[in-house]
């Protein structure tokens, strides 16, 4: 969930009133936001770098607000204020308009064929006669960063470049060139670099190094030039220094290059809708024309208003309220979804503004109506759904056996389903190839290399961590292991196992054998061949030679028991003899 930090006093000034922290927290809650933290720059620095570093830092109160991941329109102060003011019915949602330049042709961005290979899409727009202040400027930069981190998926899908239009001259060309052929002075650097040099320069940059991989291995890098050959940007890495915006910038050229056109349009709409209120003619955006390699042209930003029609009854039925059509239309209008009751008095026409890209379907509109009504004002009802409960037979059996194993003096352990390959193979004197283990391709540490194929290693690790406890240690676990199984759609299946260990000064084979007898008794299987159970000597590398037996029940092999091999004991850093029982309980369903 993205977090937006805004200066409290600035926020209250824009909202036209002050709130106590509790009141504001309450307002956030109602609106689906979360006031995550109240802090200041000074607090943050002193927490992260110590008090001495914090000296002199600003102690202006900051609100850190968690915003739902699909609400890109609330990622800056401007959007938050607009959303809350409309919600509190202090203002009407503004109407965003795309306008043509008053006395000239629109700015043009020409996309060349070469970009297809690396980053094929681009959109652009102009904010004309904008007035920045320090706060507005900071917010403008911060919004780009928030969008980059969220909808732009760390610039892989979309990258934003903003430029002082008065320092460059169109038409602009979006092309792609071999890295050696691109040369310019990048933002905040004193000299020119080639693209290759830049890539190595930014290898150590704490911020930019995360984006290098996006184009690093491409034959050509994307680049935007103005008509004089000045580099605007080399997306998605860095802008040129020449066109950088400042507090005095009056006209901003915004370009978004992308691998996903839909997302690029959303991002451009967000950038311009959030900041066009500071233009001389508020809430207007000057169009730019994008020319495709095939000669097609498109005008951006789209700023599309879409209409949906739905009935008040639909909303009432889904939410569980019974409000009039008029009231529901009012509720939706509070959420920036301007709504009107249609002539039949039942249908509502809802207009979805370009800022609400999260609204996909009628259910999204229904949610907004419910939010505006207040989730906590909705009567809580009991559904009439009549059903009979059933337990999953495997879980029912596991639950019953757990109780009786504890009654038999064994203590339940709870171990991890993921472990290292060593745990299930080397340490148990097995070869990994005979374990049928599913391997994880992207483990962060050795602890998560494989899904366990046996419960035994987890139990032995539990014993090892509890060597100081009085002996004997009697432990069990009934849980799932994972085995490769070609007959399943995912190539693997879980297998429910019962595993127990007895750890003491003497091996206690008779104890673990007695537990096995008890389990069979609980499962109503009598000793004997055929339909009964019996054990017979078996070879298993995990066990001490001559001290392992295979367990057969109703003619099927269901598991093993025996005294563990001394090398197994050593490899788990244990010192005492240990006997173990391991059975598959799925046979008893």
């Amino acid at each position, binding site marked *: *969930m993205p977090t937006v930090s805004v200066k409290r006093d600035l926020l209250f000034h824009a909202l036209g009133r002050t709130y106590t922290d509790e009141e504001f927290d309450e307002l956030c*809650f109602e*609106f689906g936001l*979360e006031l995550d933290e109240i802090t200041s720059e000074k607090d943050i620095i002193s927490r992260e770098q110590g008090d001495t570093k914090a000296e002199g830092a600003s102690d202006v109160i900051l609100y850190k607000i968690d915003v*739902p*991941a699909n609400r890109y329109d609330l990622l800056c102060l401007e959007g938050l204020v607009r959303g809350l003011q409309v919600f509190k019915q202090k203002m009407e949602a503004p109407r965003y308009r795309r306008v043509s330049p008053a006395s000239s042709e629109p700015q043009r961005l020409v996309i060349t064929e070469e970009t297809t290979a690396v980053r094929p899409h681009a959109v652009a727009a102009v904010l004309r006669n904008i007035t920045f202040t320090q706060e507005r400027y900071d917010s403008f930069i911060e919004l780009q960063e928030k969008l980059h981190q969220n909808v732009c998926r760390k610039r892989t899908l979309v990258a934003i470049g903003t430029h002082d239009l008065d320092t460059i001259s169109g038409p602009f060309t979006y092309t792609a060139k071999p890295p050696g052929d691109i040369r310019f002075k990048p933002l905040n650097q004193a000299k020119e670099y080639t693209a290759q040099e830049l890539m190595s320069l930014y290898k150590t940059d704490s911020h930019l190094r995360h984006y290098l991989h996006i184009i690093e291995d491409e034959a050509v890098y994307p680049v935007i030039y103005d008509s004089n050959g000045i580099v605007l940007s080399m997306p998605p890495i860095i802008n040129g220094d020449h066109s950088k915006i400042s507090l005095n910038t009056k006209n901003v050229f915004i370009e978004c290059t992308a691998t996903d056109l839909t997302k690029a349009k959303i991002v451009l709409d967000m950038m311009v809708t959030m900041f066009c209120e500071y233009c001389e003619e508020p809430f207007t955006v000057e169009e730019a024309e994008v020319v495709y390699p095939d000669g097609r042209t498109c005008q951006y930003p789209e700023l599309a208003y879409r209409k949906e029609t739905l009935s008040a009854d639909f909303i009432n039925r889904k*939410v*569980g309220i019974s409000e009039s059509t008029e009231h529901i239309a009012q509720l939706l209008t509070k959420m920036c979804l301007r709504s009107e009751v249609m002539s039949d008095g039942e249908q509502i026409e809802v207009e979805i503004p370009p800022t609400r890209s999260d609204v996909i*379907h009628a*259910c999204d509109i*229904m949610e907004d109506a*419910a*939010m505006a009504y207040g*989730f906590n004002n*909705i*009567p*809580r*009802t*009991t*559904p009439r*759904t009549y*059903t*009979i*409960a*059933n*337990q999953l037979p*495997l879980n029912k059996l596991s*639950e019953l056996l*757990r109780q009786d*194993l*504890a*009654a*038999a003096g064994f*203590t*339940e352990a*709870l*171990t*991890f*389903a993921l472990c290292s390959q060593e745990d299930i193979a080397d340490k148990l004197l097995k070869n990994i190839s005979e374990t049928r283990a*599913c*391997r*994880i*391709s*992207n*483990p962060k540490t050795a602890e*998560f290399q494989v*899904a366990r194929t046996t419960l035994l290693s*987890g*139990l032995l*690790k539990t014993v090892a*961590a509890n060597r100081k406890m009085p002996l004997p240690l*009697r432990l069990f676990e009934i849980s*799932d292991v*994972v085995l490769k199984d*070609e007959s*399943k*759609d*995912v*190539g693997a299946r879980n297998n*429910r196992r019962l595993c127990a260990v007895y750890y003491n000064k003497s091996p206690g084979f008779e104890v673990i054998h007695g537990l096995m007898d008890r389990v069979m008794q609980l499962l109503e299987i009598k000793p004997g061949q055929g339909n009964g159970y019996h054990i017979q000597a078996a070879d298993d590398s995990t066990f001490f030679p001559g001290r392992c037996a295979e367990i057969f029940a109703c003619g099927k092999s269901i598991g093993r028991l025996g005294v563990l091999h001394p090398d197994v004991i050593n490899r788990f850093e244990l010192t005492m003899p240990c006997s173990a029982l391991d059975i598959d309980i799925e046979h008893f369903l």
Partner: protein
Amino acid sequence: MADTGLVETLLRRVEKVDGGLDSQDVATSLGVDHQAIVGAVKSLLALGDVISADQRSSKHWELTGEGCEIAEQGSHEARVVSSIPEEGMPQSQLMKLAFGKVGFSKAMSNKWIRLDKGHEGGPRIFKTVEHLEDLVRDKLLLVQKGQASQLEEKEKNELKKRKLLSEVTVKSYWITKGSCFSTTITKQETELTPEMIASGSWKEKKFKPYNFEALGVAPDCGHLHPLMKVRTQFRQIFLEMGFTEMPTNNFIESSFWNFDSLFQPQQHPARDQHDTFFLSGEQLGVSVYKYDWKIEEAQKNILRTHTTAVSARMLYKLAQQEKFTPVKYFSIDRVFRNETLDATHLAEFHQIEGVVADYGLTLGDLMGILHQFFNKLGITKLRFKPAYNPYTEPSMEVFSYHEGLKKWVEVGNSGMFRPEMLLPMGLPEGVTVIAWGLSLERPTMIKYGINNIRELVGHKVNLQMVYDSPVCRLDS
């Protein structure tokens, strides 16, 4: 049992006195070691209220080894004087005596002797007094007779400085009659025996009282794991509410069921390598739907990141029924996240999930059912916050008021499944599916007061914690 003779003697002594007596005095007068009397007192105390004894301590002065020698033979200085004959003695000869050095300087300062340095044949010592009062010896003799109180504190401290006296603390008992005082003692039985029951002899016997302050012997038994005890309770709650358990015994899931079927686009951050464990090797996925986007992506096998993947499979199965029937499903099982680990996050945890599918379910129904579910957990104050989740709309975070922390804390997530998810599965239009989820570990940690998840789950847990954990009653 201490010597019975001594015990009886002690009892007779106690009988004779009105107030009480001191164990130290008894030892002195009987001429036995004080420890023997202490033993007798302790064994009498064990018999019940025969006597009562209060421990007390007293201080008294005793002669040191050197002090005893002086009391017997006189102070060093007196012995110097008495060993000098009329004609005097060479200093060198005096110094050879054991008491010579110390006695010489003291006798000199008392002016009991004089030294003639110029005497022919070396320095010689002569007596200057015939009779002397050996005050040091007299004082020590007083102390030896137990009359130390006649000396002034200053004098005693002086002698202490000369290491002739020491102050010792003596612990003793002040013994008085108890409420069941008697001079004869009957032997008390420790336990009831089968013979006593058979013969009826228990009627005549006295039984040693039990010490009810002590703990009993811990039963030799096995224990259930606290997290599993809580799981049992949650299972019970769902069953009480008529929910059927889903088969969640498939840790490995295809990306299709885990993400695609749940309306999580392939560019969704959750599908990143950073958050999900992917399986290596052959991909055997067979998917039910053909989408325009990359089928290889949907076929990637992963460790499921939520049990909702199973709910999706179950809803698909439900949609394949000839006629829709309403269902209530639940599951509690492991899920896996390839996330950064900390005190409250592990790579695997248990997810609790509830799902209801029926015609005409409302958001109010979801809140009502959550209200009932949490009521059974002892949580009565609930409120709901709008939230975002890719596969539910509306989505609500569930908050409960924590009386201890005096604030609202998040206890779960909930929502209505999106129609984009339900309709492709083939569920009839008009069927609404409401669902909620929470982790099993969090309420368990709150319940058992555990702050670090590693103290609850995994092989590193302290088994003593498992042994000591109480039964789980979530509503109390």
